[in-house]
């Protein structure tokens, strides 16, 4: 006996009995939901009629922890927000505090930040392509090809920071330590090897008929809805909106690099997938330029100190283009050693606002793929 939720509105389509609707809870333990994420889906046969995302299973109240600890102690916690992109999380927080305190960042540190951020973008997008294909049924093979390249980048991060994923590398006013000997050569080698990998990866997947059939026209996100719902990142650009924070805000030294911003036309899953592939090409271009031009010099501002940072009272909002979208930090300081208010603006959470709109009318299998193309990481959604 299936009981329907009391707030369910039954749409009238083609005349069917009320008992024909089936409510399915997908998750939170589910291999395709990219973490502990639950979707309460109401189905008419196979078609999605209503979809309610439920999350909060990974809520660790990072904001309150950061409000009780010093500014420095919040940096390792930011690693754990979007746990596969720790370098960009660090950068967003460190950028916000530097905006607040006016600390300057030396040239070499800025180049290193761009290099590690673009490497993070590379492996995040490769992972997404892998996970999306896994959701479609190509169980593991594209994912493992992507992970092979990811391993090389993770090895580089381990030799630089000591940890593969929880890097804790950026500090206020620069980076924790300089590049070890031989790191730059390895990074240049990796960038050189990545382009042929990407070529093979695209040859492997882009023209695949199954991928095209399953992704074309599925989960269309119209332009106006994307802007109004605050979708950012590749999902927004796939709908044709030219808004990339690296070009809009010119944070860091991104205005020194020549790179293009790919835009999609239809805003369906295929466009979002192709966005990631094209952005990987652009990241390689940026990496090539940064690795070529990186100057020698210090990596920490001479005036920066590690302990007992007390910014003057005030508030600031800093944001960067993380691989998932706009990652922002809103900090209010009251002059004390801990922030008064520490707020993380998570891209994955806001991108989920339109999940229901994209899935309505599609089948349950498509809902899985649409969720995969939105690219969420629960560490960021729940904090």
């Amino acid at each position, binding site marked *: 006996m299936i009981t329907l939720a009391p707030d369910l509105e039954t749409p009238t389509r083609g005349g069917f009995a009320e008992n024909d609707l089936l409510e399915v809870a997908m998750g939170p333990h589910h291999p395709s939901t990219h973490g502990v994420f639950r979707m309460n889906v109401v189905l008419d046969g196979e078609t999605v009629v209503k979809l309610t995302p439920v999350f909060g299973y990974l809520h660790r109240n990072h904001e309150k922890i950061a409000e009780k600890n010093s500014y420095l102690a919040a940096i390792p916690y930011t*690693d754990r927000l979007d746990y596969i992109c720790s370098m960009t999380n660090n950068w967003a927080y460190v950028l916000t505090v530097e905006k607040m305190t006016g600390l300057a960042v030396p040239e070499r540190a800025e180049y290193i930040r761009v290099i590690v951020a673009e490497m993070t973008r590379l492996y995040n997008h490769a992972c997404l392509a892998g996970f999306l294909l896994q959701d479609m049924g190509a169980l593991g093979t594209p994912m493992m090809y992507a992970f092979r390249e990811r391993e090389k980048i993770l090895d580089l991060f381990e030799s630089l920071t*000591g940890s593969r994923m*929880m890097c804790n590398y950026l500090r206020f006013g620069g980076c924790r330590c300089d590049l070890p000997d031989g790191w730059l050569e390895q990074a240049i080698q990796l960038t050189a090897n990545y382009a042929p990998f990407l070529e093979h990866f695209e040859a*492997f997947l882009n023209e695949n008929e199954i991928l095209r059939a399953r992704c074309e026209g599925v989960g269309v996100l119209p332009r106006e809805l994307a802007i109004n719902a605050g979708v950012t990142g590749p999902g927004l650009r796939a709908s044709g909106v030219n808004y990339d924070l690296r070009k809009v805000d010119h944070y860091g030294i991104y205005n020194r690099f020549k790179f293009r911003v790919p835009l999609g036309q239809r805003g369906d899953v295929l466009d979002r997938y192709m966005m990631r592939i094209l952005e990987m090409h652009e990241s390689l271009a940026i990496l090539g330029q940064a690795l070529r031009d990186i100057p020698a010099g210090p990596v920490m501002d001479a005036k920066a100190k590690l*302990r007992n940072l007390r910014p003057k009272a005030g508030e600031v909002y800093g944001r960067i283009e993380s691989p998932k979208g706009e990652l922002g930090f809103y900090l209010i300081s009251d002059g004390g050693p801990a922030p008064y208010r520490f707020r993380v603006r998570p891209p994955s959470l806001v991108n989920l606002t339109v999940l229901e709109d994209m899935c309505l009318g599609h089948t349950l299998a498509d809902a899985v793929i649409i969720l995969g193309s939105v690219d969420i990481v629960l560490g960021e959604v729940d904090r």
Partner: protein
Amino acid sequence: MLGRGIIRGLIETGRNFCGSYYDPERLTTVQYPEQKIAPQENARTIPFLVYDGHDPLAGLRCTACTICEQECPPHCIHIVKDTAKKPDYLGKMQFHPKTFDIDIAVCMGCGICAEVCPFDSIKMDRVFELAGGHRALILHKELLAKSEEYYRQIHPIEAAVVDEARAEEQRKAEAKKAAAATPAPAAAPKPLAA
């Protein structure tokens, strides 16, 4: 032709599959634990305390300044200071810890304690095969103390820098002591104006 994309994909898969028989790039699996990858110089997991000399507890470099305890993000370090003082490598009398506990179930392995320590006494270890050993989750200073030989072995480049700095400090301290010990030399008699 219908199926062209799938056939191109299968060619890629075939390339990877056949390549895994002779190309090391294709076969990246390491058969752990029979094969192990050499750990990186910088790798960090949980902290440990460095001691000089042969006695693990008497030679601890830690002076119980509690800076690591204050900066530790998840507050996993707990130190109780001992009121008796001991001389350190420069001869200055310093406090030392009566108890020094790290709760490694809470420890994030972030390395901030090692970064802020002014005495180079807490450093990051590389051990990750922790299951099945002593099975304690709260490590007291007996388990945390590891020799400076061990530190040089696991982090050679970092230890070289630390050793150099400490040797420099020791040289400066000895030069100061020598200058204070010898009396000021008698002033040479001024030459009489010719």
